[in-house]
């Protein structure tokens, strides 16, 4: 699993990237009450805002860490957005993207690097 400076996580399986937001981001937002999911078939460039997560406090964009086409979205978040808080790296995934270029992730961090990055903040 890789992590970005904007606090998204990415899991690569074959040509598909599963994307969510990190525990740190989920905790900072508080319990989520709404997730605006992208549409299947939408194509995005790297770093486009492709989803929105909202807590009672505020709304935040989620930036896509790899360019590609959305092939699946986590519909469970429609009825249970809090899955992102409670099962951040499993059931709290947001979308799966068929990516075009894995190079997009060259700046992404592994777990140890991300932890260090959080400590430096």
């Amino acid at each position, binding site marked *: 699993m890789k992590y970005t400076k904007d606090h998204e996580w990415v899991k690569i399986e074959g040509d598909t990237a599963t994307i969510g937001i990190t525990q740190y981001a989920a905790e900072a937002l508080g319990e989520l*009450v709404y997730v605006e999911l992208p549409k299947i078939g939408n194509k995005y460039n790297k770093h486009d805002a492709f989803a929105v997560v909202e*807590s*009672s*406090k505020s709304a935040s964009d989620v930036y896509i860490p790899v360019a590609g086409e959305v092939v699946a979205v986590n519909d469970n978040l429609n009825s249970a957005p809090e899955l992102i808080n409670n099962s951040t790296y499993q059931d709290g995934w947001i979308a799966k993207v068929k990516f075009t270029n894995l190079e997009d992730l060259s700046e992404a961090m592994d777990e140890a690097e991300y932890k260090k990055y959080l400590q430096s903040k």
Partner: protein
Amino acid sequence: MKSTALNQTHRLQGAKMVEFAGYDMPVQYSDGMLKEHEWTRQGNVGIFDVSHMGQFFIEGVDVVKFLSTITPTDFSLSQNFQAKYTVLTNEDGGIIDDLIITKINDQKFFIVLNAGCKEKDANWIRKNLANNLKFEELTERSLIAIQGQKAQEVLSKLLANSSNLADLAYMHLGFFKLKSGQEIFVSRTGYTGEDGFEVSIENNLVEKFWLDLSAHSEVKPIGLGARDSLRLEMGYPLYGHDLDDSTSVVEAGISWVISKTNTGFIGAKRVLNEKTNGVKRKRMGVKLLDRGVAREGCEVRKDGKKIGVLTSGGFSPTLKISIGQGYFDPLQVKIGDQVSVVIRDREINAEISSINFVEAKTKAIKK
């Protein structure tokens, strides 16, 4: 930035602090806003540090007459220890602030007003103050709201054995003694729609009081975030958002603060005219029918045309849908109308609703 006497206590209890009205205040504790809201709403007790609000005494022989000049309420009708929600009006009939004024006796009243308006209100009151009146801020006192269905049960445990909190009616104040003997002012008031109290207590006693309350398993500290969602569900207005210097009480739908016997208050001309002839905009509730979170500033449309903007909005943890309030033309818009709220350029289906989205559980006035 200013802080309350409980600043360090909030931090030790895991609060996330934010700036609010010039004060460093807890917006939430570790449980988060949703859980704090539900805790307060669903049978437990939430305690809120609202010491940033202004507390004042106003005293003198002509104080009743003066208060009936600066507000639309006739305070000669108040009983001793009765608390009244009202507003300060400006010369144009707009609202300077909303506040609670409690009669202690014919010559002395206790005032609690909004933190963000403290200076403005005090300047206005002093500017209009008759020479024989004394108006002083109680800077040495903190204010704690204790809200929820078990509030009476919990607060009673901290009071001297002789006190009977059950006798204190809704919108009334009493002087009570703590077990240690020190006196506190207890008002059966609040801004959550739950039964509960607001306690005015000396700064040097407040930390122990707060921790003694916190020690009960039914009690959790609650931040400003949940305070806002709790009041939004009740349709209570928040000054600076839902009320301002240009809105009148008639537009805001709180014209019940006007006493029939008071026609001489500042700004009465516009206000009484609106009461008789109606208004072009009236505060109403908006309830989303589809998912999304409506927030302050969101445009509201009917048949594709803009009819207003939300002055407050958010997610209702009780209804599990987003709600808000705004001002609309009562000739054009009525309860039940299908409208839409624009969120990030998308129209989300909504309807105009009664502004009290959730029924209040405040104790009925006894007398």
